């Protein structure tokens, strides 16, 4: 915050940074070759639903938009205990173009929300990966700081920090990684993990 914002006590809502999401497909290839983690075909956007009619309209527009394409993914929304909404997109995990298509879907969600003025309510995007041993790790994109971090829950309140750090080191060259470990938000009960 600048001096003027401090004096006037007037912070504008932080805008979301949307474009970094397209870095995910190449990062997915790296994860697969270097760590054996493959995308599960799911993806989700987590946002804060604003009160009122405007938001409901925007959200049903999004679901209609995603469902209109020829290779339409399955779409569902759910609410978590913190009052955030998860819009989940499911695609076939065997599809080689799956991750790229998934990122396009997620981007469509973001841009629609942003265009209607709800960009400040975007919290994060989550793209889960799994390895043959059954370990799961989600690649989380924080819209406000424009950075990624890995999140690997192993229980209701436990996370696999070693796997997370390994994923971070694998992807360091490709993605902007959240430098502060305290900023690696725990998303317990996130869909797809």
């Amino acid at each position, binding site marked *: *915050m600048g001096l003027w*914002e*401090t*004096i*006037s*006590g*007037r*912070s*504008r*809502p*932080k805008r979301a940074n949307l474009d970094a999401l397209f870095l995910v497909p190449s990062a997915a290839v790296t994860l697969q070759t270097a760590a054996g983690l493959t995308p599960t075909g799911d993806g989700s956007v987590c946002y*804060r*639903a*604003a*009160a*009122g*009619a*405007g*938001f409901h*309209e*925007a959200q049903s*527009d999004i679901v209609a938009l995603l469902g209109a394409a020829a290779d339409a993914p399955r779409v569902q929304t759910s609410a978590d*205990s*913190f*009052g*955030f909404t998860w819009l989940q997109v499911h695609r076939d995990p065997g599809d080689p173009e799956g991750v790229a298509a998934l990122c396009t879907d997620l981007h469509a969600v973001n841009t629609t929300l*942003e*265009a*209607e*003025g*709800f*960009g*400040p*309510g975007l*919290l*994060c995007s989550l793209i889960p990966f799994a390895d043959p041993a059954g370990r799961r790790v989600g690649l989380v994109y*924080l819209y*406000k*700081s424009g950075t990624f971090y890995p999140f690997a829950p192993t229980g209701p*309140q436990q996370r696999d920090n070693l796997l997370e750090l390994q994923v971070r080191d694998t992807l360091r060259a490709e993605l902007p990684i959240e430098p*502060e470990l*305290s*900023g690696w*938000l*725990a998303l*317990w009960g996130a869909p797809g993990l």
Partner: protein
Amino acid sequence: MARSRFVGDAGLTVRMTTVMFLLGALFVALVVGIALAVGSSAGPGFGLVIGLVGIGVAVYQWANSDKVAMRAMRAREVTPEQAPELHGMIDRLCALADMPKPRVGVADTSVPNAFATGRSPERSVVCVTTGILGMLSAEELEGVLAHELSHVAHRDVLVMTVASSAGIAAGMLGQGARFGGLGLFGGRRGNNGGLPVWLVVLLVSLAVYAVSFILLRLLSRYRELAADRAGAYLTMRPDALASALKKITGGINQIPQRDLREVSAASALCIAPAVGGVSLSTLTATHPSLEQRLEQLARIQAELSRPTA
């Protein structure tokens, strides 16, 4: 083109900056006035020294604000393991606002309240009482936390401390003058037949103290309104913050829930007088009235829920 649902409030900004300018001018007036009053007996640098000491005391209060406030409220810091829901809520709000996460405290008292303090966003504390945790729903609590986080982001502790230095300096001078100026400007008369210097100093500092008191309260109310705005935009739920405010202030009698035609003997006492204008209590309140805050939240709610184009 992305549209914005953020409605500015130029009037609030103008009023706030005017008040801050007046407080600054008051401080300068105090320093100059004291320097003139005691100039002959204690040298021209004296007013400047008093001013610097006033700022020094204010800066000390600011630097230790987190510890002092936590101790005064008998609050203890809680870890994510001890209060996972509270931490989870603050984590998400900080990620939404892209700000560093403050420490989290809980005070064991049944009074519903929450406060944020600390010298900078990096070294701040957000504290809630057990009373507010029991009283509010999760959504309402989140609205309150967003309001407190906005205080942190706006650096309100710093702003209010700097703004209060004129009052602190004036208060110190008044105390000194009362006890004969601690030998600095006591005893001697300035001019033959004129007022004694210590009396002039006492009167000047009393006047400055009174004006600074009113201005500070005014500034505090503006900062509260600004924090309400920012908090409502952060959670996108102005209604949750509004219902939290109503619960906390016990504002049952502000908006009648009962049919007022059912007149009972006592109900005449319960209806809030609908008389506008400035009374002593509105001049000295640190927080804006509930009506004012609800009105602002309703405006934000209307903008957020406007149908898509």
